[in-house]
């Protein structure tokens, strides 16, 4: 069992390494992409600087908390796209029969698929997340907690993407559902939850789990709370189990295809 896990981790890390290597073939383009992603992210924070020069509290958030909010938003977006880009195109993989080459290998199909591609410009998002953390004022404890919560948030984001993408096993071309759901996470991630109430807020802690990816982590960094920590861990574990169950249940309905294709 332990050897199996070790071998699986070896393949997963090799797969990620090769996917990153492919994207880094053109070094100039790679560096420019990362820099431009950083600039793109930075442009948004300017808007918040202006808003906070007018008002000191927006949606119950201080400016430091807005920096953390953006840090978590950029960080989870970066980690998930940098390491597990294919989780966001799972629907396409299913409907176009691209799972075949993973299914004939003696490894975990889901992990092999989601680690098969990397979006290297997302490295800019990860760097940006830590720049914001440093600007907001950092201690070693805060740095560790931020990193742990970023990993948990990334796992929840990936699980959410896998669940949405797996719907294609049952509904065929349902990439629009996955794209909308994943887009909702990105859209809501950069606003303080204090400006939402009622149904939208309830959705953020249920169907669109942005509350566990961004809002609770921001609160935890501002003021540590054991209950919130347990909640985050529980949601991470439950969504991981759900994602695996739904994907493997759907895999039995996989119908493949005879499209000509290559793993470029």
């Amino acid at each position: 069992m332990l050897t199996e896990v070790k071998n699986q981790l070896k393949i997963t890390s090799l797969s990620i390494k090769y996917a990153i290597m492919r994207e880094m073939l053109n070094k100039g383009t790679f560096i420019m992409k990362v820099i431009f992603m950083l600039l793109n992210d930075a442009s948004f924070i300017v808007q918040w600087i202006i808003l906070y020069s007018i008002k000191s509290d927006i949606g119950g958030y201080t400016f430091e908390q807005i920096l953390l909010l953006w840090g978590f938003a950029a960080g989870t977006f970066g980690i998930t796209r940098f390491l597990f880009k294919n989780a966001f195109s799972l629907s396409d993989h299913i409907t176009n029969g691209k799972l075949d080459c993973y299914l004939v290998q003696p490894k975990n199909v889901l992990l092999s698929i989601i680690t098969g591609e990397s979006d290297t410009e997302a490295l800019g998002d990860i760097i940006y997340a830590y720049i914001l953390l440093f600007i907001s004022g950092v201690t070693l404890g805060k740095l560790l907690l931020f990193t742990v919560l970023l990993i948990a948030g990334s796992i929840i984001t990936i699980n959410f993407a896998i669940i949405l993408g797996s719907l294609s096993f049952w509904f065929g071309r349902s990439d629009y559902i996955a794209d909308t759901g994943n887009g909702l996470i990105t859209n809501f991630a950069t606003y303080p939850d204090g400006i939402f109430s009622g149904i939208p807020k309830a959705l953020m802690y249920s169907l669109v789990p942005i509350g566990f990816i961004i809002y609770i982590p921001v609160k935890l960094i501002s003021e540590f709370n054991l209950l919130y920590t347990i909640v985050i861990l529980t949601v991470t574990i439950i969504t991981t189990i759900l994602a695996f169950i739904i994907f493997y249940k759907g895999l039995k309905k996989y119908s493949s295809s005879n499209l000509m294709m290559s793993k470029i």
Partner: protein
Amino acid sequence: MEKQNVIEVNNLKKNFRVKEKESGLKGSIKSIFKTKYQNIRAVNNISFNVKEGEMLAFIGPNGAGKSTTIKMLTGILYPDSGSIRVLNIDPTKQRKKLAYEIGTVFGQKEQLWMHLTPLDNFKFFGAIYDLSKEETDKRIKELKTLFDLDKFINTPVRNLSLGQRILCEISASLIHNPKILFLDEPTIGLDPVVKQSIRKLIRNMNKKFNTTVFLTSHDIADIEKLCKRVIIVNHGKIVVDDSMSNLKKEEGTLEEIISRIYKGEEKHHEKVLGNIQS
């Protein structure tokens, strides 16, 4: 001593539900409100066995159910009913266990990382099959000699010719020394010279390692030169399961005989089908 069955298939069935739509924009709008589905019987109650070390051609016209069958045998697709045992393993229940024992090459789908060299790809595949570094290196050395890969083993796959790429695909699928090799149209798009050399290599591999070969191909020469036994499927059913020598006894070239069987005009078809049903 009689050779053992390495593949046993009994009453295998697989249907696909396909959306039906009338032509034109009107048809598209209609299908939004009322979707019609058609049940396609891709594989319709087929049974056969394959013996250890055998080289079997599993052929049929487009849409006959060849690829669907091969995908069920390799654990890619789940059958609707029937049973499959490959090396005494049920692919639907023990996909990973089976994957250690078989190799697959899909001519239409590449499994290699295009930006890596064949050597790096082989090392990656060695890791996939949990081979140690020493085992992988030893196996790469063997395959390098067998398939004459020396000239391009350090060239990124994306820069190789199609023939070289297919050679590397086959080599990668053999890295773990599988007992059965499933080849789904391995020579598709290749020139006659490359096809010939690939056939020779498959034959050599079969002789050297006693690897069972399950081949689907539309290339008559592939079938004729590699396989002693032919299974022909049409409309999801087996219509011929016979030796190549028996099949060739019919009138005309092998291509003509097979074409007639595909069209349902060949007497051999009825004769052998009668045998199968009985």
